[in-house]
């Protein structure tokens, strides 16, 4: 992975910079010792590593502003990071940049139950928001599977999804306001702490969400709270073929039901899981769907009937419906254990997250089977079927020379197949460094140019998280001077990283 060339000049100033930053955040909150910096050298994707120049942990918005201003004045790059659970290398450090860690910005500032809003700092773990309001019968809906650890700031940066976003939407749909610090240290308030607070403004908040830390550092987030659904029930449906299961997904939505979650697991995943949960799945089962329905008790009962009828009509072999919360948890445990179960089958696995139109599921699943043969690597499938978000699990052995490269190439081919059927490179993990060089498969140079021009509006010196998301630097100064007509030729000689 080619990253922007590190500046030896900046690296040589490490101790001076550390001294300056200590003045801002206090001496113990700047980590310069090599051993102590080591845990920060990668995020959730360990294939990419780099030692950060310094790790800085501010404790307030004012400290964040001062740190950014300090770095801006000295031309020092900044990589923001929450808990470091990114699965795309979004928080991969730079050798000539500081790692700005938000873990001390971790308070729930205000819970406004009557207006169903909470204001929280970016370092608050996702789950902690729901915990802070559960006594009020409220919750924060988006629930990425990393929710125990991942921070809301990171969720905003990656526009995190989760199991429930088919019905409840992704992070962006639940954000009402953001307090934003630009690279210069300038503080801005976007939106506010009530519905519609951002109306009549350019939706900068919308574009900040999912911008992977390239545009600014968020220091406070106003999130929508929702009443906790009264009841949730899950139906486990087994099918004799992958195609039948895929068709059932479309049929459920086709009859007008939006499940709270709709998950798919193939036979390989089920075999791996059955060892862990000591439960055998019917021999004829080639694919399993888990469909969760939530709402009031009567509503859910009605929906359970509708979905069960659809599943039977679509050729389901067996249906199991949870009748108690305990049963629901048990049925879900197969899905929750899927990734660790696969982990027991192979030394290493690689998982990516392309997203496709739902009716292209059979086509893309066939392509995966072909690719598996081509690369000689096994794979399993376990994904968010309701929103077409695939998580193919490619199994390999890092100890075998060339295996990692094969797995990466397999993964990239799957993503390209997703784009080719009208899908996207990433549903919820983000582009980061992992999928950066695939961006040209989804977007034309003109599309990418338009996105990168936005960087020039926020951070023209490209100090914030450079080298991520886009395969080229944005060269704001040059873009600004260019007069445009036509398109493609302008970009012919842009050097890639």
């Amino acid at each position: 992975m080619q990253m922007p060339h590190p500046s030896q000049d900046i690296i040589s100033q490490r101790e001076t910079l550390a001294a300056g930053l200590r003045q801002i955040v206090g001496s113990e909150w700047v980590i310069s010792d090599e051993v102590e910096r080591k845990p920060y050298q990668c995020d959730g994707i360990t294939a990419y590593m780099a030692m950060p120049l310094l790790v800085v942990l501010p404790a307030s918005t004012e400290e964040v502003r001062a740190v950014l201003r300090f770095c801006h004045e000295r031309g020092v790059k900044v990589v923001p990071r929450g808990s470091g659970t990114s699965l795309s290398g979004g928080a991969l450090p730079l050798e000539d940049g500081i790692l700005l860690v938000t873990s001390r910005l971790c308070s729930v500032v205000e819970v406004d139950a009557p207006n169903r809003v909470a204001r929280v700092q970016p370092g608050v773990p996702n789950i902690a928001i729901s915990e802070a309001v559960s006594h009020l019968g409220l919750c924060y809906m988006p629930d990425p599977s990393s929710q125990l650890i991942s921070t809301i700031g990171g969720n905003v940066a990656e526009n995190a999804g989760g199991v429930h976003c088919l019905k409840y939407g992704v992070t962006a749909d639940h954000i009402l306001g953001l307090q934003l610090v630009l690279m210069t240290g300038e503080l801005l308030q976007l939106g506010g702490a009530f519905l519609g607070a951002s109306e009549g403004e350019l939706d900068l908040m919308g574009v900040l969400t999912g911008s992977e830390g390239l545009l600014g550092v968020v220091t406070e987030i106003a999130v929508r709270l929702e009443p906790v659904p009264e009841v949730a029930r899950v139906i486990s449906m087994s099918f004799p073929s992958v195609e039948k299961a895929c068709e059932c997904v479309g049929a459920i939505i086709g009859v007008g039901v939006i499940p709270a979650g709709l998950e798919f697991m193939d036979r390989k995943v089920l075999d791996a899981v059955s060892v862990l949960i000591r439960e055998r799945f019917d021999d004829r089962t080639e694919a399993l769907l888990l469909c969760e329905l939530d709402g009031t008790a009567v509503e859910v009962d009605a929906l359970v009937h509708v979905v069960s009828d659809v599943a039977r009509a679509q050729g389901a072999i067996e249906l199991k419906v949870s009748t108690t919360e305990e049963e629901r948890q048990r049925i879900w445990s197969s899905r929750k254990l899927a990734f660790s179960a696969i982990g027991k089958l192979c030394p290493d696995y690689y998982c990516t997250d392309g997203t496709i139109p739902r009716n292209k599921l059979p086509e893309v699943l066939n392509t995966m089977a072909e690719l598996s043969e081509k690369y000689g690597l096994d794979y399993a499938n376990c994904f968010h079927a309701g929103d077409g978000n695939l998580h193919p699990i490619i199994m390999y052995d890092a100890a075998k020379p060339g295996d990692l490269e094969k797995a990466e190439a397999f993964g990239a081919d799957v993503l390209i197949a997703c784009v080719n059927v009208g899908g996207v490179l990433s549903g919820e993990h983000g582009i980061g460094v992992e999928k950066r060089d695939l961006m040209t498969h989804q977007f034309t140079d003109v599309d990418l140019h338009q996105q990168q021009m936005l960087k020039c509006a926020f951070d023209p010196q490209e100090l914030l998280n450079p080298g991520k998301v886009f395969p080229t630097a944005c060269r704001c100064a040059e873009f600004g001077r260019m007069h445009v007509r036509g398109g493609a030729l302008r970009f012919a000689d842009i050097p890639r990283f």
Partner: protein
Amino acid sequence: MTQIQQTQAREHPSSTQDVADIIMDAASAGHSLAITGNGTRCGFGNPVTASRAMALGGLDSVDFYDPEDLVIRVGAGLTLDALEAMLAAKGQYLPFEPPRYTGLYGTDGARSTVGGAVATALSGPRRILNGAVRDFVLGVEGVNGQGDIFKAGGRTMKNVTGYDLSKLLTGSCGTLAVLTAVTLKVLPAPRAEVTLIVPAQTLEEDAALFRTIRALPLGVGGLARRVSPSGQCEVLIRIEGTEPGVAGNRAVVEGLLQGREGARVVERTESAALWQDVRELTCLAPRADELVWRVNLPGTAMPAFVAEARRAGCISRFFVDWAGGIVFSTMRGVQPEVDVLRYRKMAEKIGAKAMLLRGPDAIRAQFGAFPPITAGLAALAGRTRAAFDPGGLLNPGRMTVQA
């Protein structure tokens, strides 16, 4: 209401490439462009001063509609009526319930376009249940101020692939790029709908009722307080879902109404007609010489805000939607210069956002139709605009803000 001479050329592109050509021609001739769909909401936002105009009504293609995938892609010029009819045929709907507001502007709502709905980002009463326009725009195609055709987003529900320019363009009133096509997430329309109509009490009591109802997951897709055509002040509660779900939730809501006599229930077409009136502000019935305001605010702050504004003469008539989170009002505007500023100040004091939905061009040009923003935010918005339209060709002035 745009300040365009009727005699001046209005371009009618029929393809995205036409749009790009018109923009590049305008750029090379030093012209600016007023961008509209069919122009039914030109009175929204600040008046545009442009030397040429482009109307996108001809871009009315339906590129694909995949009901099982809950997604549709259409040209920006397709009318909302045509789109909604197509969705209704498959039992689906636009979740953000876009208002036309053409009653306010004296135009024909049947001609309001999808592009206009996305560009203005106005959400209807269902906002409290389903979300805003921005939450359902999955992808866009547009042409920037330099004539570049670009796309952003996609057609999948989940997508973190590059910056979400779709959200940024939503609500940008055509000041960043000309929207030529949009991809929208749609939802199955609820199978059942009932509306409880309850006599209103004081604003405080009704606001408290809204909070009680909103604290429970009851599928309530509409909570408003208005004056009925017969002059009764009433609270409207719309409950949606499956037949049994609605019946169950209705019983729960009725339980919460203990002590309020005289509730009535309307269903189906009658309920739908009622909410169309709310969505279109029909119950406000503003006179031609009145200003019309739309104020977003925390529901808890609403009763005191309305009381103060009425005392100060800033509110003539009003009604409340979004469970108290939005106040629509008329202003007599005897001295609009004074009243506009006074009302804005009142809103600002509690962090509310006051939008002048309708008013004479001169007033909107002088004070700005949109809620004022800080100098820092205005500067960032300006730089963002320059990233799309460095020459300032597109809808100049539409979103300019008074500092």
